[in-house]
């Protein structure tokens, strides 16, 4: 929690002037982790290197959640004999994990 947020929470103790009208509306600011890494334990990050395919560009970060089982046409990372490869899921046996997010820096 940032210092500003902490100050907001303890705003009551500072009784100078008027009480903040936002006092009863203090909420946690949005955090990307709640969206992308819902299960931080099973979330891994990979970087894609290669030509643009399947909507993934060179240098994109792939977020992989191992707790989710892939279904047909999902983007998956396969552990091939020598390296990791990105493919569409078609019942392959060597699936490392399902790609849940592609982070693309503009």
């Amino acid at each position, binding site marked *: 929690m940032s210092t500003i947020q902490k100050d907001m929470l303890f705003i009551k103790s500072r009784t100078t002037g008027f009480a903040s009208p936002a006092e009863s509306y203090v909420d946690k600011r949005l955090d990307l982790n709640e969206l992308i890494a819902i299960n931080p*334990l*099973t979330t*891994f*990050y*990979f*970087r*894609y*290197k*290669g*030509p643009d*395919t399947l909507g993934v560009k060179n240098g994109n*970060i*792939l977020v992989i959640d*191992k*707790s989710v089982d892939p279904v047909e046409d999902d983007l998956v*990372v396969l*552990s*091939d*004999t*020598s*390296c*990791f*490869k*990105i493919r569409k899921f078609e019942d392959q046996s060597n699936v*490392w994990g399902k790609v849940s997010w592609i982070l693309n820096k503009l």
Partner: protein
Amino acid sequence: MGKSFLDIKQTINHVKTSKCINRWVHYLLGIYQYSKLFGIFDYRVYRFIFLRKKMNKKIGIVDCNNFYVSCERVFNPVSIGRPTVVLSNNDGCVIARSQEAKDLGIKMGEPFFQKRDFMEEHRFCVYSSNYNLYGDMSDRVMTTIKKYATEVEVYSIDEAFVDFSNIPDEELEDRLHFIRNEVKRLTGIPVSIGIGPNKTLAKLTSHIAKRHPQYNGICSYWSLPNFRNTLYTISASDVWGIGRKWSKKLRAIGVDSVGQFIMQSDMVVKKLMNVNGLKTKMELTGMYCFPIQKISKLKRNIASTRSFGQDIDSFDQVAEAMYSYITSGAKKLRDNGISPNKATIFLTGNRHKGDEHHTFKQISFQTQTRDVEEIWSQVYPQLKNMFRTTRKYKKCGIIFNNLMPESIQQTSLFTQPIQLIQPPVNVEKKWEMKQDFISQKYTTSWEDIPSVFV
């Protein structure tokens, strides 16, 4: 009238029985205290206490298979199917082996340089130890296990004791298979589970399971055929809690196997080892003596030590290394919220080159401190005294003792201000670790995340 009379009678009876129990408790406590004084009847008393502790527990040990190798294999598909080893700090010796490497006869702790050619010939995958990766993967595995059990004691980086007592017998096997599959699915690390009535037997069961692959990673003490006979084929030194020192002592009285060990009398075991040895023996016969400790005990001491990448003969280098170990030690102290008031520093020669030189010095700090500058200022003069320019050193380190939580701070009445000494600066780091085959910090550094290709 009659009812109240009965009530009173019941109350009196109740008081009587509780007094009676009280007396018995005092009587037993008395025996216990006296026996402690004399020592000789000790074992009988302990036995009495432990006999009552025969409980129907189901203790499991969840053990990651070849943990370091498994971690590397999650992120290096190349090594899957190839013999793989992980080396210790400084690439000294082998500390983890894949099954293929074991089959090729690589021993635990074998010096790497002796086997280098052999490994190249057999297309080994060799990795330097990458504790950033192993630490993170261990945390993932342990947290996954904690989701499925309430009582979990994380025993080491790759093992955890788990209490499965609340699971009914008939569901147990399915449950264990489920946990094993979940850990493998969620983290990619294969685990095996041994289960028994107590920690020692759980460990022994998992030891047996490892030697027999047909158990498929799940092995129960109750399903082992001829357990008593199997005990005679297992060496006593393989039992959890019996170390090198005790197994040597046991061998001296002709005890080699576990079966022979449990045939010894309590008296003999207690005298030869100590009460923990006796507890181990009792656990081997099915009693429950070592409970699961959910919360780890406060650490007794914290060591920050490592060997150098090469032999060092300059004081500046040693000082620089010592300063960096103090810094990392102080971080550990801060993380645990404790501070020491004593420390031991030591310097060691290269034992592999026949130099058995080892000097150490205990330092009492003026006050409890974990401030790097304060510690350094008090360590530096002692280090300077210890150092001999004629010698070469391979290892140095600092061990912090007398650790107290922050809240218990004792200040001395007569403290003199510490004369602060400058930390070493701009020294070429010759002492840094040799890590020729280190893999990347795949899960803890954005620069190191693994790459995916088309």
